[in-house]
């Protein structure tokens, strides 16, 4: 299990994701500034920071939902460029969970899960359904598999979305504020699923403000502000002994209430 410190994270043997000198603009707005980040296999990284700091944009660049203007992103050695083949290749290896779930409302939960395996991985239907049922069972909503997303609670929808991503057997899972749109009662059930996933050794990059969860699960904390990485540290050091003033201010503000 990786216990990456900022020093060792800069030189891992064969990082699964390697981001170098990444710069991105939305029109004239410089949203990501010179990001350098490498993530090893089986590592769990939690990214936090104030809204507008670029954390969502950063992970959306990793599966090319956003393109970048400068620098490079390598996923398992494959560079992300305009090359559609590479994008397809990378997306097969990366599962993503969104703040708003983004389940397909016209398909049942089971169909949501089998769509990718059938159409992208060309898996036989029956095999895809067996995989989907196994994973729906793992996130404990197998009994909801024939329902449509609109009939599920927020927590159930997010767990279905996690199962959908897992069905593609990804090597990396990206979580973009997975609990921010949930009622407080449902946050725990989603975090439990994510903790379980972390314990199984999945590589995870999580944008989240759930600091208790982060302290428990993360190998590494990253704090971003103004489009750049301000602090990168072990959870222990990050929460108990933050170095930058900006981090201290942020932590004091979100931990106070």
């Amino acid at each position: 299990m990786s216990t990456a410190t900022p020093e060792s994270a800069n030189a891992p043997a064969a990082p699964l994701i390697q981001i170098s000198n990444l710069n991105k603009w939305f029109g004239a707005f410089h949203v990501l500034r010179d990001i350098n980040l490498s993530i090893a296999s089986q590592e769990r990284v939690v990214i936090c920071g104030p809204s507008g700091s670029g954390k969502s944009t950063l992970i959306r660049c990793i599966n090319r939902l956003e393109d970048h203007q400068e620098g490079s992103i390598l996923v398992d050695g494959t560079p992300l460029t305009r090359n559609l083949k590479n994008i397809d290749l990378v997306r097969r290896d990366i599962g993503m969970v969104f703040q708003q779930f983004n389940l397909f409302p016209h398909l049942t939960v089971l169909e949501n899960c089998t769509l990718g395996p059938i159409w992208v991985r060309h898996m036989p239907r029956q095999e895809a359904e067996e995989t989907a049922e196994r994973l729906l069972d793992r996130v404990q909503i197998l009994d909801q598999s024939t329902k449509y997303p609109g009939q599920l609670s927020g927590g159930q929808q997010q767990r279905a979305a996690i199962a959908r991503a897992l069905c593609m057997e990804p090597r990396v899972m990206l979580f973009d504020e997975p609990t921010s749109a949930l009622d407080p009662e449902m946050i725990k059930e989603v975090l439990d699923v994510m903790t379980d996933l972390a314990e199984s050794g999945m590589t995870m990059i999580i944008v989240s403000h759930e600091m208790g969860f982060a302290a428990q699960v993360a190998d590494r904390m990253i704090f971003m502000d103004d489009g750049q990485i301000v602090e990168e540290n072990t959870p222990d050091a990050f929460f108990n002994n933050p170095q930058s003033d900006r981090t201290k201010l942020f932590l004091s503000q979100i931990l106070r209430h």
Partner: protein
Amino acid sequence: MFFRDQSEMLPERPAPITEVGVIGWLRINLFSSYGNAALTLVSLALLVLIIPPFVSWGLIDAQFSGDSGAACSGIGACWAWLDQRLGQFFYGFYPADAHWRVNVTALLLVPALLYVLVDNLPGAKFGRWFSYVYPLLAAYLLVGGFGLEVISTDKFGGFMLNMVVGLTGIVLSLPVGILLALGRQSRLPVIRLLSITFIEAVRGVPLITLLFVAIVLLQLFLPPEVSLDQLLRVIIMVTLFASAYMAEVVRGGLQAIPKGQIEGAQAVGLGYWQTMRLIVLPQALRISIPGIVNTFIGLFKDTTLVIIIGLFDLLGHARLLQTNPDWIGDVDHEAYLFSAAVFFVICFLMSRYSVSLEKQLSQDRH
């Protein structure tokens, strides 16, 4: 301080009599306020004024037999022409000994339509294939060739002509419209520009103008040895015209789909066409059903414009009848009324189907 124990929770009670049953329905729908009650009464009075005279004119006092307008008294409606002319109203000048071909085509249309429109029919797999093959089969039956006597398309007429142009237009305008709508949203500037130009150009011109272009002008640009069938030109123009409207209807649906849906599909690894076909279009088209059917209905009624190129559709034959020396002056209302009724039946069916489809889809999902 107040609290309720589990055992003290209030039980459910039936709704008051004024909210349910016949009385409830009347109250809610017809007499919910003084204004509505007044409107209900006025409407009732209007119906009493209009319906009985209309029925006695159209049925009770009407004349149903006779060889010419002279047979009609003038008090009631004159339906005597139906006997002689009904065939022309439906088949136009299509040769009488080949009317069976039109009949078979019409008969086969029923299963071909049902298998497309209704889910879970027995033999659906074969049925779908039949639906796909049907257009070719219909063209073969109506035009002939390969053993069947060839009947030139200028013999097509009456309501059969409306159906041929209308149905072909409907079947083709939806896919073309969808492609145009996608093109209009394309990231590729060339495709986007072409789509926008086409849609705006076609929408900005009356259909009659397009038909004139198709019939008169097009030949000027084509090499003289190329001669496109006139009916084919009309069908192409009607289709393109409806496609432009369809594109805008579908675009409305496309824009209602949240961006997250596309991102969700991309994150799962689906490509552009898969995303459109599996995720975006099923949802967008569902939202667009009212607009799509509206366009279909408009297109179907526009088929009456074939009269300007000298083809006589249902309405054309109504006019022929009105100006026929035997009937002139006696059937002015009746011929139009009959044509209107035929169009109404088809358009009303389309409208009801759209409503039931919307209901069925919304029941499925929520």
